[in-house]
Structure formats: C-alpha cells, structure tokens
C-alpha cells in the first residue's frame, strides 16, 4: 500500500495538471478568439505583433497537451510543455505587475463561462502546476496511462 501511494499521488497530479490546461484551452476555444486576444493585450507586456498568433495557437496546445497528460500519452513531453507554459505565465503575470502595473479583474484564462480567477489566484495555480509538472517530468513510470499500455 505504501509503495503504491507515490504512484497514486503522481497519477492524481497528472490528472490535475492535465485537467487545468485542457479546460483552459477548451474554454477559450469555444469562445470568440477576440476575447482572448483582448485579454492578452490587457497584460500590457506581450508584444502586440505576437498577440494574434498566441491567441490562435496557445488554446489548442493547452487542450491537446492537457488531454495527453490526462490520458497519459507522451506524459513526459506533455508535462514538459505544460511546465514551460506555467513558467511563461508566471513570468507574464510578474512582468504585468512590475513593468506594466496591470490591474486586471480576472486573468481571462478560462473564458467567460468558466472559472473567474484573479491574476493573483492564477499565479498561485501556475506555481502549483509548475511544481507538479517538474515532478511528473522526473517520474520513470506512469501507471494507469496510455503510455504504459502502448509500450507493452
């Protein structure tokens, strides 16, 4: 039982991080793309020339790699990508506070119908996601995953 506990913890961590990103991507994708574009400009630190491309690509990557992580498909790659995203989001939030003095009501991460988190709340969530992603990257095995099934 004790030997199984770490496996269960990292299984739940995988599901948690995957769900956060898959949901964030999905919520943005079913809404008008202009909403996310506007939110990106509100941070005040992302070069405007990059905003249309980020708004177009990022939600798909969040959904795909989040879903991969939930299913346990290419889990190390997925955790790495989502860990890098968390790190970038943390950097953007800190920069928006320090450089741009941004005072946004919500982070705009989960669309209109979803969770309405403040930048402070999403900052904490990103820190948790980053820590869990780093832990997942260090795992040697991924029980209860597609990866384990396909490698048999």
């Amino acid at each position, binding site marked *: 039982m004790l030997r199984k506990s770490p496996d269960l913890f990292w299984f739940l961590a995988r599901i948690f991080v995957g769900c956060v990103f898959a949901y964030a991507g999905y919520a943005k994708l*079913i*809404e008008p793309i202009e909403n996310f574009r506007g939110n990106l400009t509100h941070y005040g630190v992302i070069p405007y020339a990059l905003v249309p491309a980020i708004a177009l690509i990022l939600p798909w990557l969040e959904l*795909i790699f989040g879903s991969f992580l939930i299913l346990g498909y290419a889990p190390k790659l997925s955790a790495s990508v989502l860990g890098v995203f968390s790190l970038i989001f943390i950097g953007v939030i800190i920069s928006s506070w320090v450089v741009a003095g941004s005072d946004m009501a919500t982070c705009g991460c989960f669309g209109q119908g979803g969770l309405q988190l403040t930048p402070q709340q999403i900052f904490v969530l990103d820190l948790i996601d980053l820590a869990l992603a780093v832990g997942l990257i260090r795992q040697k095995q991924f029980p209860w995953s597609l990866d384990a099934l396909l490698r048999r």
Partner: protein
Amino acid sequence: MKPRYLLTGLGIVAILVAGVLILKGQNVMQAPPERESGARSKGPAEAPIHITEFSDFQCPACRVAIPVVEQIFESFPGQILFEFHHYPLQAHSNAPLAHQAAECAASQRQFWPYHDRLYEEQMRWSHEPNPAQTLLLYARDMKLNLDAFAACLTDENVTRRIQADQKKGDQLKIQSTPTFFINGKRFVGGKELMEQGIPYIRQTLAQTQEHA
C-alpha cells in the same frame, strides 16, 4: 517511436479538433445589439458606423480605452453612432452602484458628463468602502436634482435595466471589458480598438462610399 504510438496521438488530436469544432458550431452567439433608442448613445442615428461598447466604470482598461474612442470621434466626424451598455464585472465591488448612479444621471439627461466624471475619478471612488457619498458629490457638482438622484440610487427598476444589459453581454459571450462591436464585429480592449478597430472603420467607410 512505434507507428501505433504515433497513430494513437494523431487519433486523440483528431477527436479533440472535431469535438471543439462541433461544440463551437453549436455555441451560436446572439447577434450584437441593434441600434436601440433606450441605450445611452451619442452621434447621428443614421451614421454608417455603429459602435456598441460593453463597459465597467471600475475597470482600468475601460478608462484607458476612452482616448481611443475620442480619437475615433475626431477622425470620423459625423460618421459614428456610439452606444454604451452596462457590464459591471463581479470582481469590482463598487461598479454596480457606479452604474446605477450613471443611469440616475441619465434620467436627468446627464449620462455622458457623469460617465466622463466616473472615469476621470475612477481611482478615487473605486477604492472607497462605500462610494455613495462621492457619487452624490458628483451629482451635486453637475447641479442634478439630488433628492431624485438619491432615490434613484436604490430604485430596483434601474438596477433591472443594468442587469438586462449584463444579460445581453453574457449572451454575446463577453468575457472582459471594454468589449466593442463595430457594425457587429468584435474588438476587445482599447489596444485592439486602436490597432484593428480604426483600420476596420476606415475600410468599412471606404466600402460604403464605393457602393454609394
């Protein structure tokens, strides 16, 4: 990597893309509001460009967008009909009262001066625990009937009008403020209005002149 592994990944991606496209197709949005007589508007009713804004008086990004709107009026004189719709965000605790106060000013035909004052002094009233006195002070400065204004601040009919605007915004999937619709096309935030909205107005007007 084994072909079976790669094909599984491609299969997952295909299912996700198909799922999102189907759900997005079902998630049909209501058309942006038509020109409404009850809305707080300025500009000629027959103007070729109709801008609808959903805004929150306590939102800093809405304050920042005001110079862009002013620039649009200056650049396209007589061509713009601008409508304001209330969309106080949940995270802004003083916003509902500020929107109610603006509606109360509107009932005394002073919506736009009050609107401008709320944005000019946003940093003041938005940080107060109870901004009612400050909002009354602005009404007094504009020489509004204070008894009527104070009674209006708690009038539930006025609150319902604001909530109706919010509901319209929800149906339009508004996620943040300010959100603008220019002849039905959506632009979110002052930066987007500046970078994309102004060229869109220029292009629309050029097309209108070509067809005339």
